[in-house]
C-alpha cells in the first residue's frame, strides 16, 4: 500500500446527468441546424445541413436509449405507465418520421391486419423501442420496410419488417446491442394481469427480418 487514495469509479448517477446535459445541448444544436436549413443557401450547403441535423437527431435517440437502459438497470427496473392509446396513430406517426429520414430512398408501407380503437401501453416507451427497430430495419432494407399492427390473442403486436437479407447475414459487430436491449426492456416493462410484453426478432417467412413488439 502506498497510501494513495483509491481510484473512484464513475458514479452511474453522474453518467446519467452527463448524458442529460449532452442531450440538452444536442437539442440546441438540432434547432440551430434546422434554422440553418431554412436559410437561402446553395443546395449543397442545405444538403449538408440536413444531414447534420439528421445525425444530431439520431444521436439524441441513442442518448435516450442509453438513459432508458440506465433506468432499466436501476433498482426496480423500467416501469411502463400504461394509458389508453390509439395504436394506429402511433404507427402513422412512426411511418411519417421514417419517410422524413428516407427522402424517398425506400418505400415505407403500413399494414393494419387489425386495428383496435385503443390499447393500453406506455406510448413514450413503445415509441422509443419501435424507433430503434425502424432505424435498424432502415440499415438493412433493400427497397422497403413495412410497419404493421395486429392483435395476437391477448396481445397487441407492432411489427417492423424489412426486405433485407434477414438475420443470418447481419454482422453483429456493427451494432452495440443497445437498441435491442432497450426493446427487450420496454417489452418487459409492460404487464397486464400477470402477462409480460416481449420483443422478438426473427427471419420472416417471405424473407427479410421481422421485429415484433408484443404488448399485453
Amino acid at each position, binding site marked *: 500500500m502506498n497510501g494513495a487514495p483509491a481510484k473512484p469509479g464513475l458514479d452511474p448517477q453522474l453518467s446519467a446527468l452527463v448524458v442529460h446535459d449532452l442531450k440538452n445541448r444536442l437539442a*440546441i444544436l*438540432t434547432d440551430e441546424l434546422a*434554422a440553418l436549413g431554412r436559410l437561402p443557401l446553395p443546395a449543397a450547403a442545405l444538403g449538408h445541413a440536413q444531414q447534420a441535423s439528421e445525425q444530431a437527431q439520431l444521436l439524441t435517440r441513442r442518448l*435516450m436509449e442509453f438513459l432508458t437502459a440506465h433506468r432499466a438497470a436501476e433498482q426496480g427496473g423500467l*416501469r411502463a*405507465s*400504461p394509458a389508453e392509446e390509439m395504436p394506429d396513430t402511433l404507427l402513422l*406517426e412512426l411511418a411519417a418520421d421514417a419517410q422524413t429520414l428516407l427522402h424517398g430512398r425506400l418505400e415505407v408501407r403500413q399494414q393494419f391486419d387489425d386495428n383496435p380503437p385503443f390499447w393500453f401501453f406506455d406510448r413514450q416507451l413503445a415509441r422509443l423501442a419501435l424507433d430503434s427497430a425502424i432505424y435498424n430495419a432502415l440499415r438493412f432494407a433493400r427497397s422497403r420496410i413495412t410497419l404493421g399492427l395486429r392483435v395476437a390473442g391477448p396481445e397487441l403486436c407492432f411489427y417492423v419488417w424489412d426486405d433485407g437479407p434477414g438475420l443470418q447475414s447481419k454482422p453483429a459487430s456493427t451494432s452495440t446491442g443497445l437498441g435491442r436491449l432497450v426493446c427487450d426492456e420496454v417489452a418487459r416493462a409492460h404487464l397486464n394481469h400477470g402477462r409480460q410484453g416481449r420483443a422478438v426478432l426473427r427471419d420472416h417467412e417471405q424473407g427479410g427480418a421481422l421485429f415484433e413488439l408484443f404488448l399485453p
Partner: protein
Amino acid sequence: MNAATPKPTSALKVLVIDDQQQMRQIIRESLYRLGIRQVLMAGNAQESLRAMRGDSIDLVLSDYNLGEGPDGQQLLEAARGARLLSPVAPWIYITANALKADILAAGDFMPDGYIVKPFTDQLLSRYIEALSARKQALAPLLLAADAGQWERVLEVAEGFIKRSDALSVEGLKQKAQALMKLARFQDALACYGQALDMNSELAWANLGLAQAQRALGKTELARATLDKLMRSQPSFASAYDTLLEIAEDQGDQQGSLEIAQKVAELVPNAKRKLRLGALALGAGESELAIKALEQAVNRNRHAVTPSADDSLLLAQALLDHGDAGRALAVAGELGKRFADAPAARLLAKALGAQAQQRLGNAEAAAALMDELAQDLAQPPGAAVALDEQQKLLLAKSALATGRNELGQQLIGDLARNNSDRPLLLASVLRAAAGTPAEADCRALVQQAGQQMSAAMSELQQAKRSGDVAQALEIGERALALSPQNFNVLIELCTLHLIAMGRLGQPEQHRERARELLARLERSHPNHDRVAAARKFFRERAGAA
C-alpha cells in the same frame, strides 16, 4: 374561464413558458410555421399568471424547469388550482427528461402531455392537434366535473363509455370519481374494477380502488392494494399519500414518518417536505424536522402563493433542537414577511417569545406574550382564526413562557376537538412535556378523552334506543364542548337529518344540518364521511 368551443389549430391562443429566451423563440417559430399566430410568451411564473389572467388561453406549452422561482409543476398547480385556465385547455410540458415516471411523480395536477426536447415541427403539430381534439371532445365531461356537477358527470360519462373508443376510458375514470364524490363507494369500486379488468396496471384505477375500499371501511384491503400499486409503479406519489393518510388515521407514528420520508424523496416539493417536517416535529424528531422544513422554506421562497406554515414549524423545530438563536431569527423574518397575515404575525410573536425565554431574556419574552394576549383579546368577530397546528404552536409558546392559563386552555380545546386523532394528541402531550404544567396538561388530555368518549357512547346509546331528541341534545352539548370535532359534527349533522322526519320543526333541523354540513365541507372537503353526509343530506333534504 373559457367555454369549450372547437377551434382550428391555427386559431388557438398559445402561451409559451420557458425561462430561456432562445428556447421561447424556437418554440414560437415552430408554432408560426404551424400557422399559429396568437402566441404569448412568458419567462417566469409571474408573467405566465398575468397572461392567464389577462387572456383566454387555449393551450400552454411550458418548460418543466423554469430556473429561479416556481417550477413548471408549481405553476401548473397554481393555474389549475385558481382556475385561471379552462379545464379544456391542454397543458403540455416541454421537458428534457425522457421518462414519464418523472412527470408522473411530480404532483397533484397532471399535465395533459409532454414532449421531449428536441422535437420536430411535425411532432409538435401532432401533439397539439391530438391533445386539443381529445380535450375538446371531452369538454362536456371535463366542464361538468370542474363545476362539481357529479350527477351530470355520471350522465355524460355513460355516453363516452358506450363509445368503446379511447375516450371511453376517460368516461370510466370520470364516472368512478363522480361516484366517489356522491359517496356511492360500492358502485365506484365496481367501476374501478371494470377499468382494471381491461388493464391491471392502470395507476389511477388501482389508486381509486384502494380509496373506495378505504371508504367502505376495508382498510387492510386498501393497504394491500396500495402496496401492490407501489411495487408496480414506484413513482406514483398519490399512492404514498393515501397510505400516509391511513397510517395517520391509525395513529401509526413510525409508519407515517417512514411513508412521509419516502414520498418527500420521490417528490421533493414544498408540500411534501412540509408534511414530513410537521410529522417529524410531532414525533419529536427535531433534526429530521429541521432538514425537511429548511428544504420546504427554500422551495417555497418563490411559491406562487407563499405560506408561513413551513417557517413557523421550522422555528419550533429549531427551538426543540436547542437552537433558540436561529429560531428567533426565523420568527423575526416571518413577522416581517407576513406582516399582513394576522395568524402568522401572532405566531411569529409566540415563537419569538419562546426563543427569548430560552435565551434568558424573560422580560422580552413577557413583553411579546403581553402583545399577543392583546391580539387574542379581540371580540369574537375579529378574532384571529388559527388551525390546529397553529394552536399547538401557540399552546407550546404559552407553556414555555409561563402563561399556563392560556396554554392549558388551548391544550384542553385541542384535546377535545381532536379526540379522534391519535397523532395530534401525541403532539399535544409532547408540547407540554418538560414544562411545569406537564402533569396538569396530561390530566387535561385524559379528561378530554374521557369526556368525549362518554358523550359519544351516550349519544350512540340514545340512537340505539331510538330517542332522537335525546341524542340531539347530547350531540349539541358535545359540539359546544368541541366545536371542531369531526366525529361530533358528522353525527350531529346526520341526527338532524333523521330528526326532520321524526320530530317537529323539520325546517329548523334541515337548516342546522345544512350549517353543520357547510362546516364539514370547509374543514374536510374530500373526506369520504363528508361525501356520505352530503349524500344523506340530498336524500333527506334535497339539494344542499
